């Protein structure tokens, strides 16, 4: 038991990763930030549309798509992976729609059935063809952000942009950001009031499928780093924390990005200290940030609520006395 938690060494945990080991941990933190930023931005809209658990479904469902893409193309290049993931994501949405429109099984159960089936198939394929795929079943669950290859470096016009996986993830994150900027109005109004959106001539169905496709791409890009389950935390935690602190959508987006940055940096330190999975440590750090916001948010935190409750009580308590 004592050997479980390694001795705490402030220098190794807080200083070393950002100084002498920056070339390793810097990229890990940057990768974590890119993943959490892309996921967080998409996740904000999922939550606004009460579809947070579609993230759950899609993240589990891309696995068989990835495995089949590996097996067919024989490589882990980006193109086949995206195609496989999009196909699997589409298959998942199709199965869910089919089950819940054609039968009396409700949507929540339909989601549960679809993603578990696809994920189970993916795991079976992964194990059965273990020799041909360099994915192991556990990595599928929680990824391995520390083993994401740092080679080759991508350079553009003399500038070193970073290791290839990071550049790919960052490009996805930037892409998501640009899409939100371009379609901000449409996304906002169709999430808030689909009826009004329709009457304004915006097609909510088109936006819905666009969002699902974006989700699939984000999830598959993040898969290698954080796996199928932790990605759900990456989708939900930044926005949840942000919405504890503000009631404006643009600020929710900005705070999500801040949460992504903080949780990846703190996660690296936590992972080094505890010597555990780096991606899981980032999620735990992000959850601690959420817990802090939940407790201490000035407007809706637990402490503020308790304080207001107490003040109201102390104001109201003399009242019966006055009556008498």
């Amino acid at each position, binding site marked *: 038991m004592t*050997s*479980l*938690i390694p001795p705490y060494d402030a220098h190794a945990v807080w200083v070393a990763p950002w100084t002498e080991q920056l070339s390793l941990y810097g990229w890990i933190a940057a990768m974590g930030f890119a993943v959490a930023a892309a996921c967080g931005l998409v996740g904000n809209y999922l*939550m606004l549309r*009460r*579809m*947070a658990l579609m*993230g*759950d479904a899609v993240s589990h469902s891309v696995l068989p798509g990835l495995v089949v893409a590996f097996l067919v193309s024989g490589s882990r290049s980006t193109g086949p992976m995206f195609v496989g993931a999009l196909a699997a994501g589409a298959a998942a949405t199709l199965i869910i729609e089919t*089950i819940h429109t*054609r039968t*009396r*099984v*409700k949507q*929540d*159960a*339909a*989601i*549960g*059935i679809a993603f*578990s*089936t696809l*994920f*189970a*198939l993916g795991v*079976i394929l992964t*194990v*059965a063809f*273990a020799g041909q795929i360099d994915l192991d*079943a*556990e990595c599928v*669950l*929680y990824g391995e952000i520390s083993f994401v290859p740092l080679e080759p470096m991508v350079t553009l016009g003399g500038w070193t942009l970073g290791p290839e996986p990071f550049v790919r993830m960052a490009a996805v994150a930037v892409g998501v950001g640009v899409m939100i900027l371009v379609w901000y109005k449409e996304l906002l109004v169709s999430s808030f009031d689909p009826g009004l959106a329709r009457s304004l001539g915006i097609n909510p169905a088109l936006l819905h499928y666009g969002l699902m496709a974006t989700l699939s791409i984000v999830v598959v890009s993040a898969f290698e780093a954080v796996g199928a*389950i*932790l*990605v*759900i*935390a990456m*989708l*939900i*935690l930044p*926005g*949840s924390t942000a*919405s*504890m602190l503000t009631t404006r959508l643009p600020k929710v987006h900005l705070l999500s990005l801040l949460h992504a940055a903080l949780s990846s940096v703190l996660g690296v330190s936590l992972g080094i200290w*505890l*010597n*555990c*999975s780096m*991606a*899981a440590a980032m*999620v*735990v750090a*992000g*959850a601690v940030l*959420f817990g802090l916001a*939940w407790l201490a948010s000035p407007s*809706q935190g*637990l402490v503020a*609520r308790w304080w207001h409750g107490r003040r109201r009580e102390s104001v109201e308590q003399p009242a019966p006395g006055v009556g008498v």
Partner: protein
Amino acid sequence: MRPAITPTVGWLEARAWLGYLGVLILGIALAAPAQAAGIGDLVEIHWAEQATRFFTFQDATVRYALLGSIFLGLSCGLLGSFIVVRKMALVGDALSHAVLPGVALGFLWNMSKDPMAIFIGAMIAGLVGTALVSAITRTTRLKEDAALGLVLATFFAAGICLVTMIQQLPTGNKSGIDKFLFGQAAALGADDIKLMGAVTAVALLLVVAFYKELLATSFDPGFARASGLPARWIHHGLMFLLAAAVVIALQAVGVVLVSAMLVTPAAAAYLLTDRLHRLVTLASLFGVAAGVSGAFLSFVGPSLPTGPLMVVGASFVFALAFMFAPRHGVIARWWRRRTGAARTRRENTLKSMFHVWEAAAFRAEGVTLTELAEKRRETLEDAQRLGRALVRHDLATLSGDVLYFTPAGKQRASEIVRNHRLWELYLTNSAGIAPDHVHEDAERIEHVLGETVVRALERRLDYARVDPHGRSIPTPREIHGDAGLTDESKPRRKS
């Protein structure tokens, strides 16, 4: 429409689903070795030999794996039914992921897979997780789906941190704690089986004892609470049992997929029956079937984790139910739609015959196929096809190219025409719809009007004899009399 048949429908249905159940089990039994063959070849193990070992229960591992999967299938199917009817499928998902840190802490208790320590740890983690979900939804503006996802993934991450830390320990590597992620039925021991049996027995007893309360609170929680049932306690009790069922299933199914064992068998059963007690029974059976087939497949291909195989087994059962369910299945619906469309087509043919006959002032001997084709603006081949369909259903006879009504056919034709014209009259007179709008409606309604509605319509319209377009409405006496255009009797003139 035909009340005389209703009492037997329940029986037919019951027999039908028993039959389907048999087919399902047979299907699984047949499909299992076939699928196993593929996997067996893959891992180069002689599957037939393994299958014999499995079904002859030669060694304790097999017996434990089999018993374990029966217990887990039973308890998950049983409790999963309530999850499905209460629309809490995703609560089960969150619960099952949230137990992982508890498993790791239970393991750390004395650095071994002590079933009791792990059970207690996992129960606590699961219940804390569900309590957190309700605390978050109560005290923040986050919606339930976000709260569920948040707790699910966060607890899982904490669990992964602990598991990876344990694996760093000198003893941790051989601990087998990673088996809790995807499950390995072969790793079940005697103590595990005792615990699984005990939990299953308690769950079964409690569900039987509190069946009425569970039924009432699942259907309408507000009403149940108002009528004095302790809905809140029933809910907490159910969550407790669910956590227990999830935890005992962990070892065999794994954290990641155990929620599917709750949802999928119950959802399959939900497609097959309309009564909660049958749903519970069927779901338990399906759970057992999925569990046993998964354990078997995993046994013949030892490198394969059990959990995904059980889940695929359960999904297979669901897919069968989705296709073949006697009332809600895709094929049954397709068949109903097809037969419904064919019946409508026949009735429209009869109607056209009636119109031709009416145009000839009911004097003609029969309706030629050419006349029918002209009336329907179709080709002669189409008319022939339609005529043959009538003959097949004893609604008409065909001699040469002349169609004659049979008595049944003539009655049906008059009924359809009467329905059409009554409905047009009703829409124009009582519903105040313009006469030029009513025809399209009547085209659809004429096929579905039952006798009781027709009687009510006739009363309301004071037994009117003329429709809004000035044509006469056939009366019941004419319909049930044997007058008219049949091959047995000469057509008589109508008054």
